């Protein structure tokens, strides 16, 4: 019994620590007071103001656009890297390729952001591309750091499944091009999906790299939120947090339910 008590105690404390700040934020998003921490009464006032705040809405739209594009390109290249590293033996300067595809994982984002910004400025000076900083430069930067994360996921999936399936397909006379699309791709589909989702959230969540590489018309949601809360508190941001939490919780519950029904099958 002592053991059980200790277990419940640990889990309660642990999960309270994880959830207390988030829940407080959600509770105060319904506070009808400009001073965030002084409770005045229940209202949806800040939600109304949030949905009328064009700066935030536009930033949200920009973020979604960049995140979905970045996730798609990063996934395509991540699959290419994962496939190359596990299935193709003749890669010129293979160790260099491995270095390139894994070191973005350990590079501090502040250094990544700085180097990309300096690169964009120089290449603008030399060849005139990119003509200005904006959504395109943020997109390129996000693809660059997301690729490595997707590649790791794909690689671990590809190296853990049985290569013989591919060889069997070849022996049965499948056209080589078809082997990838008909045999390999379906097997790694779950890894592709989770890679895409990870790349999507990485891009949606990124503040530092985007701050370096952004330009006019490319304020992503984290940039706008950060400018609002850097020096003080903002009741609108509280409402935004509550909405984001709601979306995440609903997504998590649906993934849980889908998983459970899959297991039952």
């Amino acid at each position, binding site marked *: 019994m002592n053991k059980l008590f200790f277990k419940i105690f640990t889990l309660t404390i642990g999960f309270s620590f994880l959830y207390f700040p988030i829940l407080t934020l959600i509770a105060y998003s319904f506070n009808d007071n400009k001073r965030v921490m002084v409770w005045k009464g229940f209202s949806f006032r800040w939600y109304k103001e949030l949905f009328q705040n064009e700066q935030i809405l536009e930033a949200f739209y920009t973020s979604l656009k960049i995140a979905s594009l970045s996730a798609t390109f990063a996934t395509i290249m991540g699959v290419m890297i994962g496939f190359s590293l596990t299935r193709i033996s003749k890669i010129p300067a293979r160790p260099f390729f491995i270095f390139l595809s894994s070191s973005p994982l350990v590079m501090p984002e502040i250094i990544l952001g*700085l180097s990309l910004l300096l690169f964009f400025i120089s290449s603008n000076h030399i060849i005139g591309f990119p003509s200005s900083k904006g959504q395109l430069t943020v997109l390129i930067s996000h693809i660059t750091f997301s690729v490595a994360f997707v590649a790791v996921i794909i690689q671990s999936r590809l190296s853990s499944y049985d290569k013989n399936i591919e060889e069997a397909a070849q022996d049965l006379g499948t056209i080589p091009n078809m082997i990838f699309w008909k045999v390999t791709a379906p097997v790694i589909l779950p890894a592709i999906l989770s890679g895409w989702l990870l790349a999507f959230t990485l891009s949606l969540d990124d503040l530092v790299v985007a701050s370096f590489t952004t330009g006019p018309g490319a304020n992503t949601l984290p940039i706008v939120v950060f400018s609002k809360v850097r020096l003080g508190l903002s009741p609108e941001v509280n409402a935004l947090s509550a909405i*984001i939490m709601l979306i995440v919780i609903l997504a998590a519950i649906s993934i*849980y339910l889908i998983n459970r029904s899959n297991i039952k099958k």
Partner: protein
Amino acid sequence: MIKNLKKQNVWFVFTPYLWLVLFFFVPLALIFKISISVSEWGMPPYRDLFSFSENGFKINSTLGNYLFIFSDPFYIRSYLNSLSLAFTSTVLCLLIGYPIAFYVAKSKPSIRNILLIMLIIPFWSSFLLRVYAWKVLLQGSGIINSILIHIGLISEPISMLHNHYAVILGVVYTYLPFMILPLYGYLVKFDLNLIDASNDLGAKPLNTFVKVILPLSLPGIVAGSMLVFIPVVGEYIIPEMLGGSDKLYFGKIIWDEFFVNRDWPIASALAMSGIVILVFPIIIFQLMYAKYNFKNE
């Protein structure tokens, strides 16, 4: 293996290869170049590395930026602060995260899946907003001060924001899921019977933990520690939102050198030394660890 994929191979290898060379390697080479350039007024605010003039070809390179950084205790201290922040918060995340991961992994499958979803929810929600949540909580008029006053521990609100303890708290809170999830991944595969076997053979619980459970979860500990340590070293957002002027960190120094002082060569030299001091040891550790694992297998 599959030999006739030639044409596809070329595309598969070279698209990401070229992309990474162009947008990862070249930018890094560029900050190295700028870090050994002489700074000057103008746009870009540094002198070209090579110049041709009447006096002939000249190389304007300098190690001055590096000498400047390493002769100024201000910069050295910020590197040390970042390293000690990363170390402290990794240890704290491990101490807090291990019991949680352990008990979640050892729960009944039905409860376990629900707890796992509850661990993933903060992991997927916005990083910036989770840091902001602590800014709200720690305010002078915030809920923690109110509770402390209510139970009579303090009579006046105390200032809990803008110091390095708030930074540690914020880092531990936001990075805890990064520690718990890989630990959970290893602990959940772990066979419970091993604990029973060890107990039956007369080992004390502490002995069982140190000699059986801990070694088997070592890969999880290493993976989780890496996921916390590496990003925290360059962390900018948390010190900026929760920290004060009592301790400055590497990430914020680079940011300020670039955006506030507009000194590109110094910012680049800081970034390059950051890579050498903070990132190379991690890569070397990973290579050594991989080799050690390989030998043991």
